[in-house]
């Protein structure tokens, strides 16, 4: 209590004083990268990095993998173990939440009552997990610490949601000896982001490791389980921006330089709704480290007078058991799916095409196709389906032909 009062007083005292040339809201990959790149690109102004969490910026991908498994410590996943404050002169403002934005006055209002003014506001607040009553989530270090504290006394674990988080958690928890049940509302896992051949392959892999998968299942008896985890997606944290008049819905709309429709307000990462040059015609959000990192770089470049539009081939990875999954491109709105190689060999690729062009590949234990497939996506060349599906023909050679 005492410490808390002290902090609030500090915030109020700082209210009249606090100003940052660049104020970054959100301490995930996008926020931390923006701060680092601003300095790397020569920015010397004041930078504030504000976030809800108390921890120093850290990497989220290990939370559902090596950190959940206990193979990496909290120190191991710190975002650049560098000292932001001392080495980069970045002021960290932990444990604080933005509740309002006044784009005319260029100020934000915080839950603590503090007001902070900015020259430019970089919004990288990510998202909050959708909740199920009584279920754990895997989004923050604190979430996973709470979950891990209960693991020793849990044998039967229910995971709600067969997306990447749910599948990664299932892989870790079965390897820890837990009895895992996974309930997915759709008729297959990864229904929203992958084609059926990958879904069926992963279902078989998880079942072979002992995961009890229930498809088409939206309600399951929690009482039969010692612990429940929900991995059913996130809601983007953009309410203060939209209330301040920024365009958007399920995210905040940004242009190719990651500018929102509000002056001096930028956004990057999971919450940024954008027209991706490698995606469909409509604006989309992408929840990935690549997107967070490259958008942050786009903003840092624009703010240091070296603008370059956001144009990076999207990529993504997942590790489950001994499977290395790598995705390149965006499969949204594909009209054709090809399987390259035999899934039974546990090394193959799923190729997505739209209007005859390769737009994405999901590669399983197949780094070569992941690397060479990128060239096909970038070039936009049309390649015969039979050639693409022939695993003996290097994808690189199809580009050259």
């Amino acid at each position, binding site marked *: 209590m005492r410490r808390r009062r002290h902090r609030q007083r500090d915030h109020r005292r700082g209210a009249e004083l606090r100003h940052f040339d660049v104020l970054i809201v959100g301490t995930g990959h996008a926020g931390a990268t923006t701060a*680092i790149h601003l300095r*790397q690109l020569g920015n010397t102004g004041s930078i504030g990095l504000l976030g809800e969490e108390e921890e120093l910026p850290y*990497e989220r*991908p*290990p939370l559902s993998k*090596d950190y959940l498994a206990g193979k990496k410590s909290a120190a*191991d*996943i710190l975002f*650049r*173990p*560098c000292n932001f404050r001392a*080495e980069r002169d970045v002021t960290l403002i932990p444990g604080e939440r933005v509740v309002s934005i006044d784009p005319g006055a260029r100020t934000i209002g915080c839950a603590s009552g503090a007001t902070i003014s900015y020259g430019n506001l970089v919004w990288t607040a990510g998202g909050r997990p959708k909740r199920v009553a009584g279920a754990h989530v895997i989004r923050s270090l604190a979430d996973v610490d709470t979950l891990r504290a209960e693991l020793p006394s849990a044998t039967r674990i229910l995971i709600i949601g067969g997306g990447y988080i749910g599948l990664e958690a299932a892989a870790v928890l079965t390897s820890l000896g837990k009895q895992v049940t996974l309930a997915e509302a759709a008729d297959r896992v990864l229904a929203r982001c992958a084609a059926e051949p990958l879904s069926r392959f992963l279902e078989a892999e998880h079942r072979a490791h002992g995961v009890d998968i229930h498809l088409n299942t939206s309600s399951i008896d929690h009482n039969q389980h010692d612990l429940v985890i929900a991995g059913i997606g996130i809601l983007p944290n953009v309410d203060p921006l939209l209330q301040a008049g920024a365009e958007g819905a399920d995210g905040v709309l940004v242009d190719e330089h990651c500018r929102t429709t509000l002056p001096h307000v930028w956004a990057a990462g999971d919450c940024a709704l954008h027209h991706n040059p490698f995606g469909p015609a409509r604006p989309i959000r992408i929840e990935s*480290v*690549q997107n967070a*990192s490259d958008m942050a770089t786009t903003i840092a470049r624009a703010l240091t007078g070296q603008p370059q539009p956001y144009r990076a081939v999207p*990529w993504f*990875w997942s*590790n489950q058991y001994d499977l*290395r999954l*790598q995705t390149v491109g965006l499969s949204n709105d594909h009209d054709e799916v090809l399987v390259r190689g035999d899934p039974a060999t546990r090394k193959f690729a799923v190729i997505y095409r739209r209007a005859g062009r390769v737009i994405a590949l999901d590669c399983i234990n197949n*780094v*070569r196709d*992941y*690397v*060479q497939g*990128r060239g096909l996506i970038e070039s936009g060349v049309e390649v015969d389906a039979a050639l693409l599906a022939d695993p003996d023909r290097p994808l690189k050679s199809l580009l050259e032909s």
Partner: protein
Amino acid sequence: MPIVTVTTRDGRTKDLTAQNGRSLMENLRAGGIEEILALCGGCCSCATCHVYVDEDWLPALPPISADEDDLLDSSGARRPNSRLSCQIKVSDALDGIAVTVAPED
């Protein structure tokens, strides 16, 4: 503890005291070499921890795996002495090794 000499993209050289048993990538990042993005955290899924290793030290390193080899192919800046620093475990045997951060792709 082994010393690693690293040359950053601006040509500056820095000696780091490295920790045995950790990857070269983790040691470079711990030493404040922010040009090493290591976006995938060291699971050999990207190629953002690419370094050039001083030729004299190549024989002291573990061989390149097929996955590392393929990932290095994704870089337009690959050279014969290219390695992914996440795939090199630091030990006393590497005391004095010199590496250069590869250009950004």
